[in-house]
């Protein structure tokens, strides 16, 4: 049986962890950056500078901030398509992320990936995967390589609650548990898979119970709106992976304030506006600020000052993205294969003729 720990969503926020003040300030600032970055993203999307599917993170900042920055450099992250904040949390610059959203050459994936495919090999940020459930076994594969090479790094795999019902979850967890792969699976349970409330489609009351079927898998449910709780749970899961060579599952109970993607309204037909408003009372940034303020670590004035800085930072990122060149037409054939693009293929598609 998996080991399961309960940290109910409704239990309220924990006390502040005993961290250096500077670290608390950084965590708050991180979350503020994610928020302002996504607000700027929404604006740019509406101005037509960003296209395609674009999924915002607003409301879920505590998960990224609580789960990612404390990872070691040698660790890995494999994420899904709501991953802008994950990239920022991993230390990727707002410039390269925004430039990627803009489809420009300075984007972290050279403008070839877009919003759903952020990559940074230097930081072991391994995507950005847009097929629901597909990256769970990929994360296990990275874990396989860690065991294969007898290393002590870990893999963090983030996904939404809709993944809880997909077959790849079983296949991945089964092998990860059986083979002892050091993967921390974090489900950001924001209650809705697109417009479908998780309760309507999952035949299990507590998602965390899903992990009970895998021997050796550590499992816990935490308040994903509380960066402290998130941080604590992740630290433990990472330790288990690193030291005990077994996988974990963290159900991070959180809430998304925006629509599923930029194509959706904030609430829509599937949830009442009241619900969104009510959840906003529980804003992960403001509730953390409140505690920091109470503890005398960050005042409201300091917060406002930090906010100005963060806004400047994302504005600069947008400016950078805007000025970054669009990819050269010749780049269309680049990065498909490690060696040259096959001659037999590129000469049959009329590309060169069309360019002339």
């Amino acid at each position, binding site marked *: 049986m998996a080991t399961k720990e309960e940290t109910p969503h409704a239990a309220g926020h924990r006390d502040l962890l005993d961290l250096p003040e500077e670290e608390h300030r950084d965590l708050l600032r991180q979350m503020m950056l994610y928020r302002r970055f996504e607000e700027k993203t929404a604006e740019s999307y509406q101005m037509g500078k960003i296209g395609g599917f674009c999924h915002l993170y607003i409301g879920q900042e505590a998960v990224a901030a609580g789960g990612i920055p404390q990872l070691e450099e040698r660790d*890995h992250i494999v994420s899904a398509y709501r991953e802008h904040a994950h990239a920022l949390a991993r230390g990727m610059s707002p410039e390269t992320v925004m430039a990627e959203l803009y489809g420009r050459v300075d984007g972290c*994936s050279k403008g070839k990936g877009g919003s759903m495919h952020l990559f940074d090999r230097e930081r072991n940020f391994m*995507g950005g995967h847009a097929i629901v459930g*597909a990256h769970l076994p*990929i994360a296990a*594969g990275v874990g396989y390589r860690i065991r294969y090479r007898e290393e002590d790094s870990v893999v963090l795999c983030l996904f939404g609650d809709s993944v809880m019902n997909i*077959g790849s979850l079983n296949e991945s967890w089964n092998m990860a548990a059986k083979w002892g792969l050091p993967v921390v699976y974090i489900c950001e349970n924001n209650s809705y898979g697109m417009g479908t409330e998780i309760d309507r489609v999952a035949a299990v009351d507590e998602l965390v119970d899903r992990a009970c079927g895998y021997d050796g898998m550590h499992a816990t449910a935490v308040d994903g709106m509380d960066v402290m709780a998130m941080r604590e749970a992740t630290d433990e899961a990472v330790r288990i992976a690193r030291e005990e060579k077994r996988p974990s599952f963290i159900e991070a109970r959180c809430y998304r304030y925006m629509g599923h993607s930029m194509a959706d309204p904030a609430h829509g037909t599937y949830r009442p506006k009241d619900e969104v408003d009510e959840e906003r009372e529980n804003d992960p940034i403001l509730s953390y600020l409140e505690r920091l303020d109470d503890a005398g670590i960050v005042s409201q004035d300091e917060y406002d000052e930090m906010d100005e800085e963060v806004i400047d930072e994302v504005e600069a990122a947008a400016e950078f993205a805007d000025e970054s060149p669009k990819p050269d037409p010749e780049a269309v054939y680049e*990065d498909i294969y490690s060696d040259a693009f*096959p001659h*037999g293929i590129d000469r049959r598609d009329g590309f060169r003729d069309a360019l002339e």
Partner: protein
Amino acid sequence: MPSITYREALNQAHVEEMERDDSVFLMGEEVGVYDGAYKVSKGLLDHFDDSQWRVRDTPIAEYGFSGIGVGAAMAGLRPIVEFMTWNFSFLAFDQVVNSAAKMYQMSGGQYNVPVVFRAPGGAALQLGSQHSQCPDPWYSNVPGLKVVAPATPRDAKGLLKSAVRDDDPVLVIEGELLYNTKGEVPDEDDLLVPIGEAEVKREGSDATVICHSKMVLQALEAAEGVLEEHGVDVEVVDLRTLRPLDVDTVIESVKKTNRAVVVEEGWPSAGIGAQVVDDIQREAFDWLDAPVARVSGLDVPMPYARNLEKLAFPSAPYIENAIEKVCYIEDR
């Protein structure tokens, strides 16, 4: 030169590559303790000191273990992922097509995926419709993948070794009916057959038969048939790699013979043959003396009954017929 089976050739390739490079490992259903569903991996587990990490028996979970292969490859290993047959790969189609094939491009060239997916494809004997399919055109359609389909033991060994060393995902389509076929394989450590190069398996002057995998054997048989019956001298071009196609070798041969028959085991609609015919009409139009003929499996799910299966399989007589047609020899 020793004559060994296609199965042994593949086995040798595994051993040699796994010995040469410790980042190479094999995973799949029954590859270890069971010695492989088709015994391709016979003795490997033992050979690698019972290391479950080098020779990994997986649960029946194609989606999961193929994804693990992709992840391990992204992280620097060189997995060989065996599907028991390509028919089961469809459970993992997403990992092959959406993950392996796309990773290098969507990461802007940061994460290549040096994974090999291998399995037997096509019909064997009376396995029924779900176990008798040719995935060749489906996967060959996908940019980011490389697809090889060796016909002989030599090519099987050389192409698998090249596939393992390739930095991109390579699909090796083998043949259940080929595993027991024998052929000469040079006794050298580094037998590499380059990916993307077709080979003329039989020289001839009157018509070119373009084919791959099992169909090469059928084409060679048909070539002898029409030579005896009509004195027609057929050139057989074995594509060996389906993506990228070696258009140059095909065109060179067609320019020489002026006639082409394109053969594949799979279905006719949007098949490999359709692509080859397209390349021929575009690059050798002025050399054609007859419309290019195609031979394929019948456009039906493979039936079980022995006689119907035989009918649906593109055997040598079908190919002979097509050769006669492009050579303007009256129907028999």
